[in-house]
């Protein structure tokens, strides 16, 4: 069976800056795959390219057997890929509820949307209490939950998460990662970008290591977590 997502030898530029230098990766249905690497390695650029915010100059991307390189971002959501962007990027001037409504922008099935609000509130009870509150007044952790809930509202087949642990306290990181595992077990495939390699490797099936625009290592998450090289570079010993 072909992989759900296949990124094949893509090159991405910001003007003259060559940010992604021939990356290939695959994500199979049902997996959690993580992409780890230091600051500026190109992790966000990779996710933004998959989401259609950037177009690769060379290479192909296919999702469920169809080419999506160069397809506009708003169309890619409709195909079933949703992203929780780095820094959460919630609509701070709108209410929690309005943020979730925007997450369901592509959908017209009223009943299904209603069920999914409930699913999100069940997963993130704190959002329910703050439904009518301006999203900008939420704490960092709550904003992360809102960004995740908002992404789930499009009922994605593949969920892209860009550094969900950023700026959160250790206890909250654990909570967020547990929720990611839950979401995956409920049937959503996950591609997770992290700098917190420890946590990411602990929940992922497979992993890719990105260094200055190139993939330098890849394989089973448990094996990578045990490898000397990874421990030295990313796990602090």
């Amino acid at each position, binding site marked *: 069976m072909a992989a759900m997502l296949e990124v094949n030898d893509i090159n991405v530029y910001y003007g003259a800056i060559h940010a992604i230098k021939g990356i290939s990766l695959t994500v199979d249905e049902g997996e959690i795959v993580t992409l780890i690497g230091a600051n500026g390695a190109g992790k966000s650029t990779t996710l933004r390219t998959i989401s259609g915010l950037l177009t690769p100059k060379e290479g192909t991307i296919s999702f469920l057997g169809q080419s999506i390189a160069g397809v506009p*971002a708003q169309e890619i959501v409709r195909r079933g890929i949703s992203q929780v962007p780095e820094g959460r990027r919630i609509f701070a001037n709108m209410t929690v509820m309005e943020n979730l409504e925007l997450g369901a*922008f592509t959908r017209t099935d009223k009943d299904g949307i209603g069920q999914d609000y409930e699913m999100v509130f069940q997963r993130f009870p704190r959002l329910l209490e703050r439904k009518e509150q301006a999203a900008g007044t939420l704490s960092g952790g709550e904003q992360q939950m809102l960004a995740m809930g908002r992404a789930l509202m499009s009922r994605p087949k593949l969920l892209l998460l860009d550094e969900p642990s950023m700026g959160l306290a250790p206890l909250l990181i654990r909570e967020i990662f547990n929720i990611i595992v839950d979401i995956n077990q409920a049937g959503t495939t996950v591609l997770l970008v992290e700098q917190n390699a420890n946590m990411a490797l602990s929940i992922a099936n497979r992993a890719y290591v990105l260094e200055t625009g190139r993939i330098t290592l890849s394989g089973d998450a448990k094996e990578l977590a045990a490898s000397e090289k990874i421990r030295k570079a990313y796990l602090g010993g």
Partner: protein
Amino acid sequence: MDFGSLLVQQLINGVSLGSIYALIALGYTMVYGIIKLINFAHGDIYMVGAYVGFFAITTLGWGIFPALLVSMAVTGLLGMVVERLAYKPLRHAPRISVLITAIGVSFFLEYATMYFVTPTPRTFPDVFSSAGITVGGFVVNGQQLLSFAITLVLMVILTYIVQKTKIGKAMRAVSFDTETAQLMGIDADRVISITFGIGSALAAAGGVLVGVYYNSIDPLMGIMPGLKAFVAAVLGGIGVIPGAMAGGLILGVVESLVSGFLSSTFRDAAAFAILILVLLFRPAGIFGKNTQEKV
């Protein structure tokens, strides 16, 4: 007239003039909010709206309300065409290029209109002057009543659209963070186009109302009100919709008070004095946030 009645009468004049400024200011502020462009052609869009209304009333013999609606529709469409042809190709260009283009569009609209309808001012038919009312000894004439009522209705509709409808939420999302809005599945280009359409339709309503109010229209009539509405938008906080409404009203009232109590010669000076004061002391405007809440 004693001081008190003069004051009230000037306030009435000011509110009706101000409501027209507010209609134009809304277009400035909505477009700025969504693509950060000061659309200097906006005053000329308003002028085109006045002409479309004029021809609907005179040539076609329509009443004021159908003329108003058709002017809003045609001019709204024109705004969308201008955006598509002149601004959309420059979406990723430096801001100064877009600004210069807007000035070019402004000249184009002014002189293309002159070419088609001649530079001679036209006399707008007297459609509403008989309908005035007297409240406690103060005259509110038909034109004032009309402009205030129409503006009120349009603002209620606009507020409803922006706050409650799906497209309105999409507009707010694109204006807050375009990329993230796209990640929600929103077609930002389409939303920007609709924003131009709505802003231009509101300006067209302002144009028809000014025609009714002052009875005279000409191809360069958009320059001064365009600048004034820009002042109103900045006063209220550029990019903030209630700010444009309030800014327009305040500006109209200040201008009327200045012409009533000092001299109408100072009217325009007052508007630009307000601009300078706002820029010096509260550049974000009355309703604007001084801090950027973006990440």
